[in-house]
């Protein structure tokens, strides 16, 4: 019985530890690790070669972590590196450089 109690305490401590550390993050550290997802609505993106062009052009950008293209919605989903920024103007330039037209940009920070 005593062994079971010690094991339960150890398990509880182990599970609780990451939460405790997470709670210790300062606001500035949280901001530094936050990732922003940029969704760009684009005209003219109708085929895989189009999607590949967009993926290549955005993928070369320093601030970009991952790129996903949704052909059904005509959207580019770009996840930025932690703490990085990509302005709306720069998104528009990259879309134009890929050969397409930017319609709108939305952002979400996780």
């Amino acid at each position, binding site marked *: 019985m005593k062994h079971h109690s010690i094991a339960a305490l150890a398990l509880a401590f182990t599970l609780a530890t990451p939460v405790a550390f997470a709670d210790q993050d300062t606001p500035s550290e949280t901001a530094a690790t936050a990732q922003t997802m940029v969704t760009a609505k684009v*005209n*003219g993106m*109708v085929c895989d070669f189009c999607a*590949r*062009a967009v993926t290549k*052009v955005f993928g070369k950008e320093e601030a970009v972590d991952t790129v996903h293209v949704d052909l*059904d919605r005509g959207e580019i989903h770009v996840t930025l590196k932690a703490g990085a920024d990509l302005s709306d103007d720069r998104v528009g330039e990259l879309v134009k*450089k890929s*050969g397409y037209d930017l319609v709108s940009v939305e952002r979400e920070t996780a």
Partner: protein
Amino acid sequence: MQRILFAGLALAIGGAISSPSAEARPVSYPGGWTVMQQNNGDFSSIHAHWSPTAKDSIGLYSERNWQTDWHFTGIQYNRLVKRWNTSNSQANLYLKTALGQADPFGDEAETEAAGFIGIGADWETRRWFVSYEGRAYDVGFSQDARQSARIGVAPYLGDYGDLHTWLMLEVQNRPEAETPTVVTPLVRFFYDVQLLEIGYTPETEEFLLNWIVRY
């Protein structure tokens, strides 16, 4: 027929070995490489190009013309003159030109300066495809012209990265050919960076085999 298929295969293998790249449209994204290889009853060709911008590409073009027995090799430049982007379609107008040399194979004739000019246009949605291309050649000892048009439909819509399939019908007109106008049903498979087209022309009993890869 055997001669054409053999040469096409040789060109395809040569293209695959000589250059690690390819495409459907003649202009790629900035820094993109493309190899386009075509074989049909009239000619076999290979075109490898690089795009410095999304509106230009430059590269090598080589064609063996089986109808008029000449071989052309030169530098080709493609220009995207205008693109129309909408929420569900894309349309393009291209100019193409090449300068190089040509020689008639099968005899001892001299090599001559040669070239061609052409236009291309296409309109595409995720379901429908329409295109037109016209070219005029001057190979010194011979002049030639040809034009072709296509219509295609995708029987299903795939996401980015899926295998895409298109059913197409191509009409090709070449006034100097034994059969000036031919119709070729073909199927296009499009996967990742590869595009493959296989067709058959009943009038001339010739196969069509096109391959494109883009990096």
